[in-house]
């Protein structure tokens, strides 16, 4: 436990938070970079994946695409993808730009499957009968999407974003380890200096960040669960609805029949 005490001492050492300290310090700068990269990458990924997921979830077209895409992306080694993209871009631009751009593309690519799967499976988890009845009431397809499907599947949509964000936070660690800014650089420099306090301190910081972000999303997910859904008087298709409320994200399709 001494190791942890020393690591925490390192984290809370004011010297490591002084503005203008030698890279990879101060800590807050790396933290800000980490969050910025994450935010930008997830934003771009969401702009691509959410509309696509809504389209696929609403129409049911391209279901197989989502499944193979998410499955295939899972098999890709992050580190390899990161290096491959930065190297390919490096042939046509200066290396700092290539590193940044390549990393961003990799981050976006890695975040898309979770967000896509969340949006798609969220929409698919909505009771078919509810949608049918909305259509029979005279809602247009857009109204069905905006007023029925999206509100009812928000917890799963947020769940997809949650997975995407955590995925990106973790990948930024590796990206920063290999040159980009971010908290991973603290670990990298610690290994370089053979300073375990710094290594462990950096690791604890990243873990805390991930758990914190995860917690925030867990709360958002709970808040987005519509009050009318999943009450105590559950009947019939309640299992599907209850599943929609469970926090962690879904991969591919939470098959209604099976649950």
């Amino acid at each position, binding site marked *: 436990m001494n190791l942890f005490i020393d690591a925490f001492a390192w984290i809370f050492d004011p010297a490591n938070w002084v503005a203008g300290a030698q890279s990879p310090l101060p800590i807050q700068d790396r933290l800000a970079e980490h969050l910025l990269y994450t935010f930008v990458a997830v934003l771009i990924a969401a702009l691509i994946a959410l509309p696509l997921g809504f389209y696929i979830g609403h129409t049911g077209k391209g279901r197989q695409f989502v499944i193979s895409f998410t499955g295939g992306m899972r098999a890709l080694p992050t580190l390899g993808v990161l290096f491959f993209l930065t190297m390919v871009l490096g042939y046509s631009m200066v290396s700092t730009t290539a590193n940044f751009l390549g990393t961003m593309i990799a981050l976006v690519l890695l975040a898309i499957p979770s967000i896509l799967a969340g949006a798609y499976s969220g929409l698919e988890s909505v009771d078919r009968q509810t949608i049918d009845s909305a259509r029979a009431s*005279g809602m247009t397809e857009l109204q069905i999407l905006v007023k029925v499907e999206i509100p009812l599947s928000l917890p799963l949509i947020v769940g997809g974003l949650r997975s995407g964000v955590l995925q990106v936070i973790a990948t930024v660690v590796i990206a920063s380890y290999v040159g980009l800014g971010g908290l991973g650089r603290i670990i990298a420099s610690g290994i370089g200096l053979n300073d375990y306090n710094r290594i462990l301190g950096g690791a604890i910081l990243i873990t805390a960040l991930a758990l914190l972000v995860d917690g925030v999303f867990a709360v958002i997910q709970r808040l987005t669960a519509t009050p*009318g859904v999943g009450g105590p008087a*559950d009947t019939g298709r309640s299992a599907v609805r209850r599943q929609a409320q469970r926090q962690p994200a879904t991969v591919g399709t939470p098959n209604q029949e099976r649950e």
Partner: protein
Amino acid sequence: MIEFRGVTKQYPDGTLAIEHVDIVIQPRTITVLVGSSGSGKTTLLRMINRMVDPTSGQVLVDGTDVATVDPVRLRRSIGYVMQNGGLLPHRRIVDNVATVPLLRGVAKSAARARSLELLDTVGLDRGLADKYPRQLSGGQQQRVGVARALAADPNILLMDEPFGAVDPIVRLELQTELRRLQSALDKTVVFVTHDIDEAFALADQMVILRTGGIVAQIGTPAEVLAHPADDFVASFIGADRGQRRLRLQPRDPASGRIVVVDSAGRPAGLIEDDHASIGDGASPDVKAS
């Protein structure tokens, strides 16, 4: 008036869901489409508000071919009730009932006020207005479904096995309620069920369908009972097994009342006193209707 003219529905794989159906549905009546699963009764119903389009033939509402009407506009002008109510689980009861008026652009306060009136109409306590569908019983949800269908004051009410998921006692109650509502509000009701007793209980006109979407018989319940068109209809309504053949027992000496029994001798009911004289001594066959 609703009219089916030579309506056929064929799916891309070649199976026929509906085969050349002609039906005329008079205004302000209850027409029940009845048949077992696979008989295409729901498909027929959903052609009226264009949830399904026929492959050939026409569906006319008041003389207008529905194919020429924008489906969204058409649906907003026709009430639709389905099994389990089909309510939006994330909206309060009052907002569920107001769905169609709000879609049509009615002001929120006016729509809410109308919703509350409709809760009275279908016999629900206004105190339920701010609850969510999940907090209501099955029967209550079904009433909300009816209220929602009535909200835009449509002339036509389509009901797709609306009482299929509630227990028998509540179902009887809802059936009675529907008859009351229909005569009070003068709606044209098209009702789908697989339950022949429900069909007899509700119908002014029955359409009996057989597998493959073929009309087996159209007529009033009395006509269908008296003259089943063929063996299929006879078997479907239970006439062939004697289920609908009732006999009067001799008057019970103690109470002076007459018990009606079915062909197996099991009691089916009592004869009202003012008709009792016909039962004296003799036990003529009567048919339930």
